[in-house]
């Protein structure tokens, strides 16, 4: 049972997809709700059975051959970081399903079928212990998202969907070349052509400096587009704006995390030397993204686009923390992935619910809704605060940790067990101004749309149904997310404590590469097998 748990996590949404396809149209909603609820249950079981004390070890492992002759297996396994992201996915899924009940009225079956297929693929990314299995899942997420955007999006949907697909597909083709190169390199030393991540992790880091740099570039081409890191972000605002509500939520909540997760899982441990060398540049780009994203947000008139650009800025913080390459920054970064999923996902829900009522997203047309929809306004304000980083809510903790990480990075001694990194106080100082910008644009948005005189789009009174406040279903969806924001805001240790072990393990690899220590000794200390005969010493 234990070892097949992860397979069930993927099989349930897939089975639901199949059931929806063959069931009558009116059953689609019910089936999707049921399937995603079972998913939540399985996620909770997995969390309960997971040995959190040993979070760095991969658990629930199992493996099946897929294409043996090319060394490809379906290998499953999660460490605590992956499990948290799985839990995030499982949590958002039923909310997305339930949140779409009223928004989706045509081609319902297709919609829920693809939504569930998307979940299976996203879970696949997090649970894969085989590089190609990971890649298959990573790529496959494109198809459901493409369909969801281009069938259920707003006016410009086809263009947005195509741009989304082409951007990410182009990037990941180049990433594939880099990943296969790593496999080839490993095969040179071990004599075995395998896509098993475990083996690759131990061998890839012994690549020479220039090899590492090229592999880093190739991998970033694929993963940075997904994150998205400035200047590869241009697909994101368009896709977000045009996507249906649940599509936006999943896009912001989980799909972007596939990029950050992939960078954490593959870039850092595979090419540690290059990461050390280029971390300042990447961090610099992230900071540009933070500031640029923030400033662009400020001038947006389309509220959905505004939140989309805020994602660019937020994920800049997330990547900055990761490339601080110390424990605080990395923990903050992982926490940021979860927090951003909750608060930005919730913001997209809020905007979606408003759009269903007013059919506009323009800040010029709607405003001052506090008097008309107080409950909605409360949630909108609440999640904005969470997103801005109000102390006590979740965004604050992760944002401050990312900045602290960047600040401390490069300091000579930051206490026992800590690892330094290549950044420094200046990075944190400049990025910190991004927090101010974030406060400006988000508060500006809330100020316009929630407070002030009531403005409603002309002619909406002619609709049969007058806009009313949120109903119980919508309140339920938002409450779950709000609860998550509060819990992670006041007790972030719940996550941080659990992800320390895997973070330390990955960072020790990176710092060893930085200090020029023999990677072989790194392996000895982390307990990895030493298989380094004939490696390319740097």
């Amino acid at each position, binding site marked *: 049972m234990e070892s097949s748990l992860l397979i069930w996590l993927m099989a349930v949404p897939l089975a639901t997809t199949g059931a929806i396809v063959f069931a009558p149209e009116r059953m689609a909603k019910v089936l999707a709700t049921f399937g995603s609820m079972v998913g939540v249950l399985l996620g909770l079981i997995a969390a309960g059975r997971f040995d959190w004390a040993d979070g760095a070890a991969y658990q629930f492992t199992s493996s099946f*051959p*897929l*294409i*043996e*002759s*090319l*060394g*490809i297996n379906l290998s499953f396994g999660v460490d605590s970081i992956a499990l948290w992201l799985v839990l995030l996915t499982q949590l958002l899924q039923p909310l997305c399903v339930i949140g779409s009940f009223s928004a989706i009225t045509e081609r319902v079956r297709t919609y829920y079928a693809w939504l569930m297929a998307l979940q299976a693929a996203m879970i696949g990314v997090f649970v894969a212990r085989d590089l*190609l299995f990971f*890649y*298959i899942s990573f*790529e*496959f997420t*494109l*198809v459901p998202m*493409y*369909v969801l955007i*281009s*069938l259920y999006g707003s006016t410009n949907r*086809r263009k947005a969907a*195509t741009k989304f*697909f*082409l951007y990410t*597909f*182009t990037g990941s*083709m*180049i990433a*594939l*070349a880099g990943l*296969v*190169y790593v*496999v*080839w390199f490993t*095969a040179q030393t071990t004599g075995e*052509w395998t896509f098993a991540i475990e083996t690759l992790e131990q061998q890839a880091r012994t690549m020479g400096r220039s090899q590492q740099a090229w592999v880093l570039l190739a991998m970033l081409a694929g993963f940075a587009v997904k994150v998205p890191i400035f200047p590869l972000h241009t697909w994101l605002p368009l896709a977000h704006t045009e996507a249906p509500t649940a599509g936006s939520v999943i896009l912001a909540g989980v799909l972007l995390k596939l990029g950050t997760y992939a960078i954490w899982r593959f870039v850092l441990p595979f090419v540690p030397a290059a990461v050390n060398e280029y971390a300042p540049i990447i961090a610099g780009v992230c900071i540009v993204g933070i500031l640029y994203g923030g400033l662009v947000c400020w001038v947006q008139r389309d509220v959905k686009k505004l939140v989309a650009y805020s994602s660019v800025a937020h994920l800049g913080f997330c990547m900055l923390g990761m490339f601080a390459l110390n424990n605080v920054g990395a923990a903050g970064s992982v926490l940021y992935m979860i927090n951003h999923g909750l608060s930005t996902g919730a913001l997209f829900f809020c905007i979606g619910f408003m759009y269903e009522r007013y059919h506009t997203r323009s800040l010029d047309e709607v405003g001052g809704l506090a008097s008309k929809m107080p409950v909605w306004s409360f949630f909108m304000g609440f999640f904005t605060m969470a997103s801005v980083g109000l102390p006590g809510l979740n965004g604050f903790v992760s944002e401050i940790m990312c900045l602290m990480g960047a600040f401390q990075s490069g300091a000579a001694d930051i206490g026992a067990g800590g690892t330094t990194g290549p950044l420094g106080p200046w990075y944190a100082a400049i990025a910190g101004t991004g927090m101010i910008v974030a406060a400006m644009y988000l508060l500006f948005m809330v100020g316009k749309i929630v407070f002030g005189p009531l403005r409603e789009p002309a002619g909406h009174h002619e609709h049969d149904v007058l806009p009313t406040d949120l109903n119980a279903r919508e309140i339920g969806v938002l409450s779950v997310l709000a609860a998550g924001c509060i819990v992670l805001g006041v007790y972030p240790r719940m996550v941080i404590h659990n992800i320390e072990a895997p973070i330390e393990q990955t960072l020790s690899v990176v710092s060893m590469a930085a200090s020029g220590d023999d990677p072989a000794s790194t392996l000895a200390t982390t307990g990895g097998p030493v298989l380094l005969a004939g490696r390319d010493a740097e």
Partner: protein
Amino acid sequence: MIPFLAQADAETPAMVAKLAYLWPEITLFITTCVVMVLGLSPNRAFRKSCAAVSVLGLGVAFVLALFTKTPEYSLLPGLMAYAKPLIAAVGVLLILMLTGTVDQGFERAIKQGAKWDPLRSTRGEFYAFALFSLTGLMLCATADDLIWLFLALELTSLPTYVMVSISSSRTRAQEAGIKYFFLGALGAAMFLYGFALLYGATGTTQLWAGSAGPGIAEILATRILETGSIGSIATVGLVLAMVGVSFKIAAVPMHFYTPDVYEGASSSVAAFLAFVPKAAGFITLILLASVVGWGFGGETNQPLASGGTLPEPIRVMLWVVAALTMTVGNVMALLQSSVKRILAYSSVAHSGYMLVGVIVGPGSPGDIPSNGIGAALFYLLCYGFMNLGAFGALACLERMSGEEIESVDDLKGMCATYPWIGWPLVLCSLSLLGLPPLLGFAGKVALFSSAIWAQEIVLVVVMGINSAIAAYYYLRIAGAAVLEEPGEVQRSLVRTASFGRIAATVVSGASVIVLFFASDALIQRSADAGAYRPSPAPTQLRSGESAATQFPLRPENSQGVTPPSRPQN
């Protein structure tokens, strides 16, 4: 003596001994003759049975191909055992696809009381030509001699010229046939010239050592040992031959005919053209490359089984052709609005991908991911199925007036109006795009692996970027079929009467999923097919001794072979 039953021994004449490998071809030839006669029968039931008999013949050939023995000495010993069943299997689908292409109007007229006139019927010839072409393709895989190879290639191509012209009553089909024929003749002249130069350089037409002493492979290996290079005449010969053959695979710069011919021919025949001559071209290319070998090395400069590259001029030529073919194919496909032209250019691009495998070579023995030939042959299989499905879907629908569908717009809402035709089209175009978990992705991973193994990083990047370019137009096709709502025009499309086409399309569509999960076994088989066993070059050549005595493959050959004269460079 029946060669199939008896072991060939020294007394058996060489040609008779070869018959033992040819049972699938013989079967196909017999079927061809039967079909040709059946097609002329005044009895309608007999005429109608042409396709069924052809499929039956191919089925028998498939079984025979699985069991026919392979020659004990060959540079690519596994090629035959892989290629022939593949050809027969795809051939079955192709014949099903071809059903209902010709004689439709004539048969209708007969039903309404017109008189049977054998002169007006083309049914028998049509199937017979298709079978001839498939026979030629199989013969390519059996070839061990330049003349054989040339004849096999022409047997593959000549029938297709006629098939293009008779596939449709439109004048465009005639034009396409003529264009195809003249350019085909140009290609044939080029590789024939190349073959002649190769013969001139080596004094033999045998590809490798056989009944007539050492073959081109051994002589070139000896030449390398003695002079360090294969010599300019042999190089020019190989380059000319390869450029000529690139007509068959539709590679740049011999690709110009592709869109016009595919567009002019009916979709079913276009599907045939996109696979059969291309497969023949690739098999020929692989044979030609294997003759000169992927590098020489070691103390005695032996041909390498792994780790080397083709001789520099040839490698550079193929490299440039591959990169250009991918890029030109994909970029041109981007600019098209007709589906058939898109698919034609996409088939050009796919040739570029497969060429990468040929450049990479066989890799290290026993190491499947490094085997570029295996990857190219596996990709050929993938391509065969997915391309068939894509063209097949186009062939399944027509306008009320009987015209074929043309533009991407015609595909709108196809999944809603004709799910059994639309979904295979979507699956096949996503597979052509290389999206996991579909067959095309497995093929691409195999090619990527082998190319990276051979350190052809630049080619891999070119390939990656090209796959991304291709994404745009494949998405257009798939998107139109799945996402768009069918309009008036699209609703008025009707299914063609031919059941075989729909069956072939559905089977191809299903196979791109099913075969992905069975790709392990297929990749293993293709790697066996790509296993390269280089000819043993003489360790040292004593003066005055010709290479012939070093290869006493049939020492007691009663016919007394004269050793080839040393060619003068």
